[in-house]
C-alpha cells in the first residue's frame, strides 16, 4: 500500500499543480476590463480617438449610428433581429452605412467593457462583425461569468481568429482608450441607455425613439425625402 500512496501523491501533486498553474495564469492576467482615465486635450482629440466600426459603403449618404453595449439584452435583440435586415437592404444597396460605437454601461454590465475590447481585438484580424454577432448570440453565457475571458477566447476560435494574437490583445490594455473614448463621446451626445440609434443625413442628425426596422426605414425616408427603399 505504501507504493500506492506514494504514486497517488505524485499524481495528485502533478495533476492538481497543473490545474492550479493554469488557474493562476488566468486569474492574474492583465486584461483591462473597465474604463480608463483619458487625458485628451480637446474635443477633436476625443472624436479622433472615439472611432466607431463601420459597415457598408463609406460614401453612403445616410449614416446609421448605434451606441451599443454587448451585455445589453436590447442591443442583442437589435443586433440579431433588426441589424441583419438593415444589412440586407439599405446598407447592401449603398443608401446607408452602419457605424457601431461602444457604450458599455459598466455600472450594471461589468463584463461589457471587456467584451467591447474583445470585439476590437477581432477587428485586428478583420472579423469584427462576425465576432460582434457571436458575442450577442452567446450573451447569456458570458454575461454571468465571473471571468469571461475564456469564453471570449473560445469565440475567437469559433470565428477563425488566430488565438495567440487575439489572446495577447485581450490580455493587454489595447483598445481600452478607444472604448473609453467611445463612451465619452456617447455621453456628450446625450446617450444614457442602449441601444441608442441616430440617423445622420446631409449634416442633420436625429435620435430615434423606436428602432425596429420599419421605424428606421421610415425615418430615413423622412430625412431623405424618399419613399422607403429595399
Amino acid at each position, binding site marked *: 500500500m505504501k507504493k500506492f500512496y506514494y504514486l497517488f501523491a505524485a499524481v495528485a501533486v502533478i*495533476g492538481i499543480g497543473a490545474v492550479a498553474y*493554469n*488557474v493562476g495564469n488566468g486569474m492574474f492576467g492583465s486584461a483591462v476590463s473597465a474604463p480608463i482615465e483619458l487625458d485628451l486635450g480637446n474635443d477633436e482629440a476625443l472624436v479622433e480617438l472615439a472611432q466607431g466600426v463601420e459597415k457598408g459603403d463609406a460614401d453612403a449618404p445616410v449614416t446609421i449610428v448605434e451606441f451599443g453595449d454587448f451585455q445589453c439584452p436590447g442591443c442583442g435583440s437589435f443586433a440579431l433581429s433588426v441589424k441583419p435586415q438593415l444589412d440586407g437592404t439599405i446598407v447592401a444597396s449603398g443608401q446607408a452605412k452602419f457605424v457601431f460605437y461602444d457604450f458599455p454601461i459598466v455600472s450594471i454590465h461589468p463584463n461589457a467593457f471587456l467584451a467591447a475590447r474583445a470585439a476590437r481585438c477581432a477587428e485586428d484580424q478583420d472579423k469584427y462583425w462576425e465576432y460582434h454577432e457571436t458575442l450577442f448570440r452567446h450573451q447569456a453565457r458570458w454575461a454571468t461569468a465571473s471571468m469571461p475571458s475564456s469564453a471570449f*477566447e473560445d469565440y475567437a476560435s469559433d470565428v477563425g481568429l488566430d488565438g495567440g494574437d487575439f*489572446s495577447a490583445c485581450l490580455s493587454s490594455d489595447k483598445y481600452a482608450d478607444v472604448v473609453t473614448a467611445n463612451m465619452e463621446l456617447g455621453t456628450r451626445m446625450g446617450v444614457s441607455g442602449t441601444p441608442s440609434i441616430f440617423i445622420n443625413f446631409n449634416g442633420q442628425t436625429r435620435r430615434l425613439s423606436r428602432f425596429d426596422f420599419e421605424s428606421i426605414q421610415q425615418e430615413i425616408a423622412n430625412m431623405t425625402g424618399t419613399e422607403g427603399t429595399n
Partner: protein
Amino acid sequence: MAPPTNRMVIAILALIGLCVALYLWAHNAGLTGPIVCGVGDCATVQSSEYATIGPIPVSSIGVFGYIVVLALSFVGLQPAHRDSALIGGLLLTGSGGGVVFSGWLTYLEAFVINAWCQYCVISAILITLIFLASLPEIPRLRGGTS
C-alpha cells in the same frame, strides 16, 4: 486480506480523470486563460451548446463523478471494506454509467459538433479503463473474492 489491486488502479485513474475534469470546470468558470489544446479543437467543443446540460456544465458532472469513484475506491481499500460487495457494485454501475455517458458525448463530438476535444477523449478513455478495472468486482457481488 491484501488490498485489491484493481481498486488501487481505479483510484489512480479516477485521480487523473478528476484533474482533467477540474481543468475543464475551471476553464468553463472563466478561471483559466485560453484552453491548452494540443490535438483537436477543444474551444469549439467547450463553447458548444452540448458543453452544458441545462444550467449544469458537463465538466461539473465529470468532477462529481470522478470524486465519487475516487472516494469509493479509497474506502474500498480500507481493511474493513476490502471485501465489500456494495462498494464493488457501486464501482461497477457508476463506471458503467460513466462509459454510457462518455459514449454519448463522444457521439456528439463525432457526428454533431464535428470537432474533438482532447480532454473529452482522455476522459472517455479513463472511464472506460475504470470500468474494465471494475470487472474484477463481479465475483465479490456473488459473495466470493477476486
